[in-house]
């Protein structure tokens, strides 16, 4: 995937998770293809789209992984998380259960994520719907508690969709530890004095 990175700064892997039927695929398709299909078929396993976007003058390639929300596909979960730099966790504002399950999803992110610095974003989808049951405040509170980004969106009306991805990517780019690990890193071990025994002979 990242081999053909000729001009883009880097290739980022973004994962979309959340309960079944909250609109994960719709969000992705709206962002990538700018389409909305009310009769979007249930995703099988995982679906992906590759696109690119410009952030702060840098072009980044995005591999967006849209996962199936159904329980049965979760056995493959760890494989989805591998190498992801950003994760978008979607819930449906018209379904309280989808919001209540967020705890579980956050736990999963912590369990399977190999990268401590992964950027998390909470997306409250379907805000165009009249029968809303989860308020913005509730969502915001949850996001604050889990230190994630938060945005309200509607894949149907396009509202907040572009913003979701832009903010997430921007935050990732601001965290080079996440994506710039090709170069040998001594960032953790700032050379203390000389690289030799200088710093070590404290005994």
């Amino acid at each position, binding site marked *: 995937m990242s081999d053909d990175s000729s001009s883009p700064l880097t290739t980022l892997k973004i994962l979309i998770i959340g309960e079944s*039927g909250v609109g994960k695929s719709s969000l992705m398709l709206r962002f990538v293809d700018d389409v909305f299909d009310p009769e979007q078929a249930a995703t099988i396993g995982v679906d992906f789209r590759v696109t690119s976007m410009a952030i702060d003058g840098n072009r980044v390639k995005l591999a967006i992984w849209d996962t199936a929300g159904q329980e049965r596909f979760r*056995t493959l979960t760890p494989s989805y998380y591998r190498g992801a730099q950003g994760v978008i966790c979607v819930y449906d504002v018209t379904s309280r259960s989808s919001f209540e399950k967020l705890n579980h999803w956050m736990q999963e992110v912590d369990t399977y994520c190999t990268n401590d610095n992964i950027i998390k974003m909470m997306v409250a989808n379907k805000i165009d719907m009249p029968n809303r049951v989860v308020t913005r405040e509730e969502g915001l509170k949850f996001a604050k508690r889990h230190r994630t980004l938060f945005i309200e969106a509607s894949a149907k009306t396009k509202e907040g969709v572009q913003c979701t991805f832009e903010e997430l990517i921007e935050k990732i780019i601001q965290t080079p530890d996440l994506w710039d690990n090709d170069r040998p890193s001594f960032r953790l071990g700032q050379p203390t004095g000389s690289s030799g025994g200088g710093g070590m002979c404290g005994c």
Partner: protein
Amino acid sequence: MAEIEENTVFEINDFTIVTDMEHFGAAFEGILQKYEFSSRRPCLSNDVKYRLIVTDTNMISIGENKLRIELLQPVPASSNPSNDVEFVEAPKDEIEEDAHVIPFTVAEEVANLKHGFEVTDSFLLKFGIRECIIISPNDSSGTFTDENQVNTVMGNIKTILHSSRCEVPVFCYIKDQSLDMISGYASDGNSTYNFSSVVLRNINRRHCSMTDLLYLFKEHLGASISAFHEEVRMSSRFTHVVPLKQSKYFRNHTVETFGLLATGPTSSLPFDILEIAATWRFFRENSLTENHSHSDFDINYSSYWNIKMKSTKSSLLGVLDEILGVYREDTRKAIRSDLNCALILGKHYTQKELPNAFQKLTINSASEVKIGKHAETEDSGTNGPMPPALMKSWVNFIFNEAESDNESLAHELNMLNAASMSENQLSDDELVNNVKLDTLFNYKNPKSANTFLAPYKCAKKSTVTWRLAIALANARVFMSDQPRAEPQLWVEFLLKLREKYEKMETVEKVYNGIDHLQCSFSQKMQMLQLCIDARQKRHRMLDSAHSANNSDEFFDANESFNAETILEPNNEGRLKLFGLNLVEIPDVPMYIPVTQDACPLTDEMIDARNEHLFSLDEEDRVHLQMELVKSDMQSFKAANAGAVFADFLRWHSPKDYDEKTNTISERMLISNNVWVRSWEAALPIPVANQARIFNDTKIAEEILEIFNNATLDQVREWMKPTVFAATLERLTEIESSYGVSEEKQKQRTKTAKILANATLNNTPMDYNEISKYCSQIEMIHNMKVHLMQLFENAREKMHPPYPSETDVQSAIKQLVNIAVHNLWDNSTDEEPTFVIKPQDPIGRAIAVIGKLDELTEQQLINGHRKEYIFNWKHSCPSTTTIPMTHRMYADLRSDKHSLYFSMANDCNFSNSSYL
């Protein structure tokens, strides 16, 4: 140029001809002006410690040659409030005393008795002065080849010094700078100082004692010995190099330390030399005697000692360096990359009945491998360098199987110990010592934490992989003269692994699927375990299905039967009740079927799978991922005859079926969607009869095949993250025997984080850095342990009072610091010193360590290096002139004898001073 022509009067009309020497003079004068060296120089305080450093460098051409003019000046060594050297005031009392006459600084400096062996700057030691200008050729081609040339230059310089009233001494090197032949001059207009040095390969043996040197000094001054002269003040320093008795170290293998990652020195102890520089501070002529037959310089009665511990070995690297060293690029290149471990063993490995993994399996044929029909593996095995009993213990250790026969292991280890010691006979004393050292080097902390300092991506402690990594590393160290030991252990490990796999025994710890936070090898081992678990489960299922077939249908739902009850194995593959009845047959209960497990994936498999998924078009991708759903549909149909798609959704994807309205969600009703198509195509087949999704046999055989074909380098690469983590953790453990500073702990945590990053991203540079760090820390640890042991032994042999614990610790710390400085520190920092008084408890302990009481008088007379400083206040040139201090420093070594003179003259005979 002036030309002489006929009939013209000779006339100089061009005044621009300047000789090379004049050029040089002008430039040199310019430098003096630049430094503003045209008056008295300040006297420096004795209270502040200075270091002489080159503060400025200039280049001047003299003819074609370039000369380097360096300014050597003192700067306060420690952080002193007054950094400005120029304005450091002389001690107050002196100022008061000589308020009107500011003395000639050079004369004061040479007379200063503080400029003895306490100083570390060589220039100060040699000539007693702290500020000077040094002239040296810029490259070897332009050296002054003899004294005449230097005299010419110095003559010129003298003129300039006098004309510019510069009192700073100027030195000029003769020949190569390294020969240390030097000539210098300083004057305040009235009195002068001439500096010179004599360097000889070998001074006449007649001049090798203090008495002789004293005559030499006086005679150099042209002064006869007279009772009217003031006494000469002398200082001397004798450096004795004492070899320590025990320098060899033999690893003492014991049952207890068998499974600990080996640490300690490789074969010799860190230190084998004790260097004592005994100094006698300024004493008067005749108070101590040294001549050819007698010496008063008994080391035990000197003023103080400077102690150093040294090693004659070129490398002090310990075992951890040996363990991590195999990951260095040069070492890796030395291993043959075309041989797997079995082939390395060659004739030492009998593969009588080839276990399956040795057959040339292809992926296709893997499924044909028959289960449980393997040749007995007992017949095959290795007969390499490692004795069978030892090998068995290793393998048992790896798989954490209780050691059945500790005695035979102890016996084998003793054999190993004996073998390493056979070449060198150790005395009983040394043997006891060796064992004591060994306990310290291989310190085992019972409280050692079971957690890591940082989240390394490696095998967890107490897993088979962790122990395998330690075993392989230890095999390498224990039998370092047997390069086949390591591959042999690997092959034996594989044979046992195969055996355990066939017998479906536990081969690795697995909790809840593959732990992706562990390294790739560990994941493979976990995968093997999951394969074994899957096979066990399948066997159980097949067995029970078989028994269910044979028995009659007698199954009746009893009263207590509810949705939570797991059903007995049955033909329909029903697991338990769902809790609702079927949509279209409302009086028939719906069952949740037994389902297949998804195939667990290691990181490598995930990457391969993801790459594959990416390469597929959407339809194929969906098809591939429908595998599990299709299997579920088959099982569901088998468990629930007469069930419809809606029933399946109610169980599988409740979101897509509304129980209230009894409707299927819109997205599942999209015509011809893959869910509906698959449902319609699915046949009712219980799991027991389905094709396996997790083909454990194939995967296990693939892994075992990879293991069998691994080269030694590959095996080591697999162990790399774990071995590095084990090393870092072991360092923490051994250091806990004496406690470490907070700063050092922070450094350790930082290194642990680098390692966590290295294991995650496999960055070779990070690994190299850690390898270097571990080697150095271990070396320091070895030094400490050795010193601790030396002091401990000394305590047993010395008379009280004993040195206090803090004194010993401080001594160890200082000695280690000196050794570390000399080993690694390339900085220009001064070498730290460790100064003690011979009669202090710690001094007496050192004397015991070096067995100084055994030194003979002859050894005392011929110390390895003898240095003397002579200071004599003597009137020169005549008895009527003001007495001035003359100084000589003599440095006698076995291969080079050097004398340095600072000779005063109270009468300035230089013609140039007339200017």
